[in-house]
């Protein structure tokens, strides 16, 4: 095993200036003021990359991915530690860096390639390939000033990829051009791998990382959290992401609750006389929402004889959460309070997709749920054994109404939850299924 890249104990700090002192006068006058704070971009990184491997670096924004790549490409230097790279390095950080707008495409190929370290004879050998790869045969002798963004990027990519280094460092530039061009880039990268070159790839796209790389490094806040088999690392990374999302969802749920309370208070102030409705079980009493057109607007109506105080969702272990895996068991709990005794109280739930499509809806009446009497103050618990909805965001409606449909308290689009799934099937819900192929005689 030969090492292509060896990173040992590398740390990098950045000074972030609040208001950067730049002029001589300022630095003389304010020499005492150190208006900056230090940011640990990378903290004691140790990494060995084998020759011929394709290594992906994943992580959230600000995790230090790009800093590491810049360190590897010698654009910036570490504060401590050493980096050793065996062989010629080429970096795809930005395409077409150093292009001169007034020069023709051809001239810029020579210029750009020489900046990337190619000699003239090497460029001359490859120039036809480069032009063909960029698909710019017709425009190669026009100034790049007149190029479209796509043409510009294609030319930049074509030059950079044809440098033929031993180690290629790539920073999320593969999303260049149309689909056809992208697949060509992919082929080029594949042929790179086939020839035993080393590639280091920084990416946000976990599926790309999983499919392209044979080793993954997960950076978080300047430290390596995990490294190894792409499948394992991506799994751990996605778990962390959904954990973070869950936390965010809990906070947003609390906010929703707050806004619901406000709406309640507002309604009372408006003078909807709750007591007038008592006992009059007629549909004419319906308080129709004013802005029906806005499907996703949180609304609340009803006469208030029964009041829904709060709604929460739990997983099978009883943890409150709002991000679920497809197929997970979910419990919805609805806290209510009866202002007077009612015989025909019905509780219902409805689940809506972001575009307003109702995915599912049911209530205690439809389900023929029977319980002798409801406590005046209680909690309704609905367990969904398999939440088989597909990946996406959903809204939850909750209502308490009479059997005839008179709403006591009707809350629509007040709560939301997210379903995650790594299977990209389509439709509304995942129907339990299994595949089998049999021979027909």
């Amino acid at each position: 095993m030969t090492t292509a890249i060896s990173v040992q104990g590398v740390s990098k700090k950045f000074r972030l200036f609040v208001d950067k002192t730049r002029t001589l006068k300022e630095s003389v006058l304010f020499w005492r003021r150190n208006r900056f704070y230090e940011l640990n971009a990378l903290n004691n990184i140790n990494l060995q990359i084998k020759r011929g491997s394709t290594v992906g670096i994943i992580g959230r924004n600000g995790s230090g991915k790009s800093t590491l790549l810049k360190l590897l490409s010698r654009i910036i230097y570490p504060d401590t530690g050493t980096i050793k790279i065996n062989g010629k390095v080429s970096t795809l950080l930005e395409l077409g860096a150093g292009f001169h707008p007034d020069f023709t495409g051809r001239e810029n190929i020579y210029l750009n390639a020489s900046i990337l370290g190619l000699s003239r004879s090497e460029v001359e050998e490859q120039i036809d390939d480069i032009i063909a790869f960029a698909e710019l045969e017709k425009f190669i002798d026009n100034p790049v000033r007149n190029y479209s963004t796509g043409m510009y990027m294609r030319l930049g990519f074509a030059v950079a990829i044809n440098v033929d280094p031993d180690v290629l460092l790539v920073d999320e530039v593969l999303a260049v051009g149309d689909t056809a061009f992208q697949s060509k880039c992919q082929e080029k990268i594949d042929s790179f791998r086939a020839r035993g070159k080393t590639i280091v790839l920084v990416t946000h796209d976990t599926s790309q990382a999983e499919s392209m790389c044979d080793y993954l490094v997960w950076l978080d806040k300047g430290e390596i959290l995990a490294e190894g088999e792409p499948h394992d690392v991506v799994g751990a990374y996605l778990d962390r992401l959904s954990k973070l999302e869950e936390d965010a969802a809990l906070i947003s749920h609390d906010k929703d609750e707050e806004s619901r309370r406000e709406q309640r208070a507002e309604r009372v102030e408006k003078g909807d006389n709750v007591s007038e409705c008592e006992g009059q079980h007629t549909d004419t009493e319906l308080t129709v929402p004013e802005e029906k057109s806005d499907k996703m607007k949180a609304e609340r109506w009803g006469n208030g004889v029964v009041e829904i105080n709060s709604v929460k969702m739990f997983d099978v272990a009883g943890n409150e959460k709002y991000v679920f895996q497809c197929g997970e068991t979910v419990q919805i709990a609805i806290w209510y309070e009866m202002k007077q005794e009612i015989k025909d109280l019905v509780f219902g739930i409805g689940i809506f997709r972001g575009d307003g499509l109702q995915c599912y809806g049911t209530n205690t009446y439809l389900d023929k749920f029977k319980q002798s009497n409801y406590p005046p103050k209680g909690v309704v618990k609905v367990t969904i054994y398999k939440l088989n909805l597909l990946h996406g965001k959903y809204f939850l409606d909750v209502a308490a109404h009479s059997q005839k449909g008179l709403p006591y308290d009707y809350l629509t689009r007040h709560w939301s939850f997210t379903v995650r799934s790594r299977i990209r099937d389509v439709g509304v819900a995942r129907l339990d299924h299994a595949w089998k192929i049999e021979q027909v005689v």
Partner: protein
Amino acid sequence: MWQRFKEIIEYREMLRNLVHKELRARYKGSALGFMWTFFHPLLLLVIYSFVFSFVMRVQMENYSLYLFTGLLPWTFHVTSLTMGTNAIVSNSNLITKIYFPREILPLSIVLANMVNYLLALPILIGALIYLDWDMGPSLLVFPLVLLIQALMLTGLTLIVSALNVFFRDLEHLLSVLLTGWFFLCPIVYPISMIPKEYIGIYTSFNPVTPLIIAYTDIFYYSRIPNWNNLLTITGFSIAIFVIGFIIFNHLQKSFAEEV
């Protein structure tokens, strides 16, 4: 240090292309284009000749010729330094995105201006021929003097280009300093105008003075420059070059974070 030199040599194609780009891009879009390489020093010559021989009445045989001999290398000096100050800062897009030996950038500025100097030389030679000037073997020393000047300028440009990344004021300060520097050199006046008792101080603190003296010796006086004089400035230039190289190398590691 040798490692750096080796790498710079590996990137000679980039250097070549940048010099080419510099020369081509400078006059791009102007009607006279590349002709400005000739017009610029000629127009300067007209102005200085008017001021110093017509208004100030400098008594000197073929004063314009003397003036031109000093003005050309001075233009090389001044444009290299003023453009070189911005060599790193104005290429921040390259510095922050691509690795290459950073020395290439100031180096390309010096070389481009040297090419410009060389291209303006035919005017000087033409004038010498027209005036039936006696051109001796002293011309053979010219490449050596040019090399010494280029070496010194490279050192100075490396220093100013690197320092300007951290102190952007340098660029403004430098333009004033260069004006003063101009009048401290025997360009618009011959060295004989300096009082005897000050000549020691005058020559020893200004590395450009012996260069100008050497150039005027070669072209105006048609005599081989004083070898002692040449040796001194060679030592000067090498020292400046080495110091510039060390300072630049020390500062270049944080260029990408500062530009």
